[in-house]
């Protein structure tokens, strides 16, 4: 530190030597910081999902036994996925809502591939509870979809948030129809 103070006050003939030392000091410090960051990153990244966790990232589902009006819950990446075989009435209900009434505007068409099949991650977008409404005995909320008992969020028949603290619609995962009655999620 004394060296830096000396060079700052203008050391005359020693000026060249001092500034070279300053440069070396800064370069070594910067190299050390980059090195430390490079060493710390593997430690931090080791806490991210591991290869085996990522390998279990897709799930195949057979839809053929699910009748109209029924719903099933499957597990994908440790989370519940809601699959509902919607009735004509439920589809009509979801499609007749004006977009400006929605908290998180999205058309029903944009949330499905085949109109009868609604596929969503069954996790409330508020704080991660599993909403009720899959079983006939469970409450479906004020909009005929799902109701989260933790903090009172109501979702409609398209899984869109209509009332309560949740900020977003239930998430539609990436999925594709392998044939008419089979989908692969993820």
């Amino acid at each position: 530190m004394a060296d830096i103070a000396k060079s700052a006050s203008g050391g005359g003939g020693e000026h060249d030597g001092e500034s070279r030392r300053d440069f070396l000091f800064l370069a070594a410090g910067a190299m050390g910081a980059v090195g430390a960051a490079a060493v710390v990153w593997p430690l931090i990244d080791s806490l991210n999902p591991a290869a085996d966790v990522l390998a279990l990232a897709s799930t195949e589902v057979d839809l053929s036994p699910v009748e109209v009006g029924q719903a099933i819950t499957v597990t994908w990446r440790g989370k519940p996925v809601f699959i509902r075989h919607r009735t004509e009435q439920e589809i009509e209900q979801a499609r007749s809502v004006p977009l400006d009434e929605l908290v998180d505007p999205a058309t029903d068409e944009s949330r499905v591939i085949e109109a009868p099949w609604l596929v969503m991650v069954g996790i409330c977008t508020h704080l991660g509870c599993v909403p009720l409404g899959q079983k006939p005995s469970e409450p479906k909320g004020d909009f005929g979809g799902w109701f989260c008992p933790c903090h009172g969020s109501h979702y409609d028949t398209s899984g869109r948030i209509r009332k309560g603290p949740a900020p977003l619609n239930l998430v539609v995962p990436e999925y594709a129809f392998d044939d008419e009655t089979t989908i692969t999620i993820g």
Partner: protein
Amino acid sequence: MAFQTNNPVIRWIEYRMPIFSFVDHSVGSGYPTPKNLNYFWNFGSLAGIALVIMIVTGILLAMQYTPHVDYAFASVERIMRDVNYGWLIRYIHMNGASFFFIVVYIHIFRGLYYGSYKAPRELLWMLGLVILLLMMATAFMGYVLPWGQMSFWGATVITNLFSAIPLVGESIVTWLWGGFSVDNPTLNRFFALHYLLPFVIFGVVVLHIWALHRFGSNNPLGIDVKGPQDTIPFHPYYTVKDYFGFGVFFIIFAAVIFFAPNYMGHPDNYIEANALQTPPHIVPEWYFLPFYAMLRAVTFDIWFIDAKLGGVIAMFGSILILFLLPWLDSSPVRSSKFRPIYKQLFWVLVADCILLGYVGSQPPEAPWVLIGQLATLYYFAHFLVLLPLLGKLERPKPLPVSISEPVLKGSGPVGASATAKPMEKA
């Protein structure tokens, strides 16, 4: 008073490493302590003994516990049924967390009532708050380990709080989990951290005591020690008083362990975790309820901050604001005994915190949402509005000349300290 001994072994060690004089200066006859401390000053040592109990029982439990999602719940049941005295060790550890928080909360409110956070003890106060935050993290992760329904869903709700952070929130939550939901990697790292953090707490406790010994304990009058006539040696006077406190504490602690061990727990945590089924009503442990109430109080967007982030800010802010308390409270008088208005506001704050705790235990419906919002608003107003105003508006009662004066009624060496009187209100 310097440490002295005739024991040759102690003298040999002391010459090479002065550990005996260090102990004597820390908790022995070489540590002068205000002579007027009341029983509320027992709660610091009670917190210390609670930490020791938690570490000892925790290490024994760790030797029987399996941190894997398939075995964790069963290994805790095995501790309860098969391990010799396992039920006792687990019930001590489980209820010990509650008692640790009871003791620490009383310790904190003691500091609030007697102004212990004021100059020159600000850093002592802030180190105590760091200990509180570490305790909360440790308790939260410990509650996840039995892998019951409340463990799992508590962990899900609380880790999801971090998703409220703009832009990087989702990535942080995935990083915390080590997966796409609370699962085996989460349980493993929570176990590792739950074992580590108590030792970090221990380290901060050492710093807390170091800072305490710089100026010594505050006292019920809140005035500075004027000289030797105001103090007594820590040992034997306060060691024996602390031991008496331990005795009373252990009686109450044992009564709960043996007669109502699950009173403060939640029955849903005796159901194994199920990722597909949320319990109908998720509640945290009782010591988190006031904070949970504040989390849920923000049900509306504030400018660009959505309700979810707002709730998280309110919850963490309720503790972070205490770090500023030494500067928010501008009154130079420490003890509430001489602050007639602050004394009343203190009890209103206590009532407000208890009310918040009750609101936190109730489902988020009318009228509890509104009551929670008002109670949260009052909590912040106490620190941000009332305390700064009070420092200017309140007229404190006259302070006694010294700690000895009210005890000795003007006799003894008090006259010597009378010259210090003008300094008192500085």
